[in-house]
C-alpha cells in the first residue's frame, strides 16, 4: 500500500496519453497499409527515420511544427522506397520490410551524428482557459500537446473512413481480393502506394513524437522496438482502429505504471517490470482477437496485373 499510495493516479493517466501516442500513430498507419493488403514490416525503420528528421528540422528551424511535417515526409520517403520495391519490382514484402527497418536504423544514426545531447524546442501544449484548469480532468484530458489530440482525431478519421466512405470501401476491397478489385477497374497499385505513403508518414510522426516530446532528445536506436509493438498491435487489434487505440492505451498505461513501480522501489526484479507492458498488451489483445475477425485476404500477396 505504501508503494501504491506514492503513485499519483492523475499523473499516471496524464502520462498514459503521452506514452501511448507514438505507437498509436505508427499502428494506425500500418493498419491502413495492411487493410490495403500490404504487409510493411519496416515500421521501426520509418519511425526512427521520422524521429531524426523531425528532431533535426525542429532544432534547425526552432519550430516543432516544421519538425513534425519533416518527420512525416521522412517516413513517407522511406515508405516510397518500400512501395517501389514491392509494387513495381514485385519484391517480397516481408524481406523488403525487414530491409527497410535495418536501413532506417542505419540511416538515422548517420543523420543524427551531430544531434546527440541537444534539447529540441518545446512543443506547444493545449491551454484552454477553463477546461485545462479543471481539477483532475483538466490535467488528464485537456493539457497535452497538440499531437496527442491529432492522434486521437486520426483514430476517429481512419475508423470513419474505413467504415462509411467509398474510398474506405475501395481500400478494403483492394486488401480483400486484389484480383477482383482489378477486374472491376480499380487501380490496385496506385491505391496501395497511397496507403503505404500514409503508413510511412504516420510512422514518421510517431517517431518524431518520441524524439521531440516524449523523451525529448535524440539517441541512436531510441525507438527501441516501438515499431514492432505497433505491428503486433495491428494484428491483435484485428485490423480495427478502435481496438488499436485501446491496445495503445493499455501498452502506454502499463509502461508508465511499471516505471512508477520501479521508482517506488517495488520488490520485483526490474526485468519483470520492464517486460510487463509487452506481455500484458499482447495477452489482452490475444484474448480480444479470439472472435471471428481475420486478416485482409490479400495481405502480403504480390499483385501483378497479368492480363
Amino acid at each position: 500500500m505504501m508503494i501504491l499510495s506514492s503513485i499519483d493516479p492523475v499523473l499516471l493517466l496524464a502520462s498514459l496519453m503521452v506514452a501511448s501516442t507514438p505507437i498509436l500513430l505508427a499502428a494506425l498507419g500500418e493498419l491502413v497499409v495492411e487493410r490495403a493488403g500490404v504487409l510493411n514490416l519496416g515500421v521501426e525503420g520509418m519511425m526512427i527515420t521520422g524521429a531524426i528528421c523531425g528532431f533535426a528540422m525542429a532544432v534547425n528551424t526552432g519550430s516543432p511544427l516544421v519538425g513534425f511535417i519533416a518527420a512525416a515526409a521522412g517516413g513517407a520517403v522511406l515508405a516510397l522506397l518500400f512501395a517501389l520495391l514491392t509494387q513495381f519490382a514485385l519484391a517480397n514484402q516481408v524481406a523488403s520490410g525487414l530491409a527497410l527497418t535495418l536501413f532506417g536504423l542505419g540511416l538515422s544514426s548517420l543523420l543524427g551524428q551531430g544531434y546527440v545531447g541537444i534539447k529540441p524546442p518545446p512543443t506547444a501544449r493545449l491551454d484552454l482557459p477553463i477546461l485545462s484548469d479543471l481539477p483532475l480532468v483538466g490535467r488528464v484530458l485537456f493539457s497535452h500537446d497538440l499531437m496527442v489530440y491529432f492522434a486521437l482525431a486520426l483514430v476517429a478519421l481512419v475508423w470513419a473512413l474505413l467504415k462509411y466512405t467509398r474510398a474506405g470501401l475501395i481500400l478494403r476491397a483492394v486488401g480483400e481480393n486484389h484480383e477482383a478489385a482489378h477486374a472491376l477497374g480499380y487501380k490496385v497499385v496506385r491505391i496501395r502506394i497511397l496507403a503505404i505513403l500514409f503508413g510511412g508518414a504516420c510512422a514518421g510522426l510517431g517517431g518524431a513524437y518520441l524524439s521531440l516530446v516524449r523523451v525529448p532528445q535524440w539517441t541512436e536506436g531510441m525507438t527501441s522496438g516501438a515499431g514492432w509493438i505497433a505491428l503486433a498491435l495491428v494484428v491483435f487489434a484485428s485490423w480495427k482502429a478502435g481496438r488499436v487505440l485501446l491496445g495503445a492505451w493499455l501498452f502506454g498505461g502499463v509502461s508508465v505504471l511499471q516505471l512508477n513501480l520501479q521508482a517506488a522501489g517495488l520488490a520485483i526484479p526490474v526485468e519483470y517490470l520492464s517486460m510487463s507492458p509487452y506481455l500484458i498488451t499482447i495477452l489482452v489483445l490475444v484474448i480480444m482477437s479470439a472472435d471471428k475477425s481475420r486478416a485482409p485476404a490479400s495481405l502480403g500477396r504480390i499483385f501483378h496485373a497479368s492480363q
Partner: protein
Amino acid sequence: MTGDLLTVSGLTKAYPGVVANDAVSFVIREGEVHALLGENGAGKSTLVKMIYGLVKPDSGVMTLRGAPYAPPDPHRARTSGVAMVFQHFSLFEAMNVAENVALGMENPPPLRDLAARIRDVSETYGLPLDPHRIVGDLSAGERQRVEIIRCLLQSPRLLIMDEPTSVLTPQEVGILFQTLRKLTAEGVAILYISHKLEEIRALCDHATILRQGRNVGTCVPRDTPARAMAEMMVGSAFAAPARTDREMGAVALEVADLSVAATGQFGTSLRAVTFAVRAGEVLGIGGVAGNGQDELLAALSGEMPVAAGAVRLWGEPIGQMGPAARRVLGLLTAPEERLGHAAAPDMSLTENAILTAAAREHLMHRGFLRWGAAEAFTRRIISAFDVRTPGPSTAARALSGGNLQKFVIGREVLQRPEVLVVNQPTWGVDAAAAAAIRQALLDLAAGGAAVICISQDLDELMEISDRFGALNEGRLSEIQSTHGLSVEAVGLMMGGAHGMEVAHV
C-alpha cells in the same frame, strides 16, 4: 428490337508469343443471347476483356449502338451500359452483399438505399438475396446472384457472362435461364460463354465460334447439332469415346454400409452407402453437387478414415488406411478441385507427379528423389494425354484448366491403378479434351481396372459407365445398369424418390 447493339470488327490482341485474338468480327443484336464458343485458350476471355475495357486491343474497332466504343477501363464500359459476370467471381468474401454490389457500381447510392434496391431487383427477377449477409457464407449459386444483381442495378444494355453455369446445380441453372429470358424480353443483349453445348442450344439465338484466336464460323445453335458445334470448335472431327465389350472380373472394391458424419459446416453426411465395383467395370455415380460426392471421394481416397470393414479392396479391409497406403495397394483417386487438391499450384508438373506417383512409379529411393525418373514419367503423361505445356518444369498454376485436368487424370491412369476413383473428370474441359479423358477411362477399364466416376454430367455418365447410381442427401440410390436406362428413371434416382423417403422431405 433487332437493331445492332455491339459490332466488333477486326479486333486483334497479341501477347508475347501468342496471338490471343486475330481480326475477330461479329455482331450482337439488341435483345438476343449470343454465344461465344471455343476450346480452352481459343481467346474467348481476352475478347470479352476487351469489350469490358480490361484489355486494350492492338487494332480493330467496336461500335455500340452505332457510336464508336473503345472503353479505356471497366468504369467507362459500365457507364456505356456493358456489364460482366465473371467466371471466377469478382467478389469480396469478407464483405456483405450490399458492399460487394456497391463496389461494382459507378455511383452507388448510400448503403441503406442500396439495400432496399437490392431487395427490389432480387424480387423482380426471382433471385432472393439478403443484402446484409456476408458473401463468404453464400453458396456458389447465391454468389452468382450477387454478381448478376450488381450488373442489373446499372440497367445494362449488354450483359457478358463468362461460363456462368459451371458452378451451378441444375436447379440453379434453371433459375438463371429464366432470369436471362426475362432480361432479353426487356431488350438486354447477353454475350454468353459456355462449354456446355446443350445449354447453348437451349438458350442462345446466335453463336460465334473461335478457334486459336480466329473467328471460324457462326451458327444458329437451335438448328445445329451439338456435335457439329464441337467439331467447329476443334477444327476437325474427333472420335467419340468407343466402348468395347469386355469381361467383368472379380469384385475389386467393395463399400459396405459406409456412414460418415459431415465435415465442416456445409458438408453432407454419408448414410449407409453400399456398392461394389468389379474389375473391368465403370461405375458412374451422379447427383446434384453437394449431396455427398466430396465426402465419398474422401472416404475412398483415405483422406477421411472410416470403419476398417466399410471399404474393402480385393476383400481386404482398408477403411483405416491413409491415402499413401491405399495408393501402394493400387487404389488411386483424382479429386475434383484441380488447383489445391489434385495439384499443388506453385509446384512444377514433375513435382506434382512425384507427389502421387512416388511409390508406384519408384520415383523415390531411400528417401531421395529420383529426378530423372520423375521427369521421364512426367514427359510420358504430357505426351500420352496431349497436355499443352512448355515442359515438365512448368508450374501447375500456369496450365489452363483443361490441360491441368488432362495432367491430373493422366498422372493417375499411367500409374496402372487397379481401382481408380475420379470426381468430375471433365469439369470445365472442352469437348475434345473431355472425349480424350473419357476414352482414357474406358481404356483403363478395358485393361482390367475398376473405375468409379463421380460426376454431375449425366451425358458423360451415360456415355462411359456400365452401371449407374445417384447420390442424394448422402444416400446412394439402387445401382442400375445404364443399358436401357431412361432419362426419367435417372431423374427419379437423383430426386431421391426412394418411396419411403419422400415423406421425410
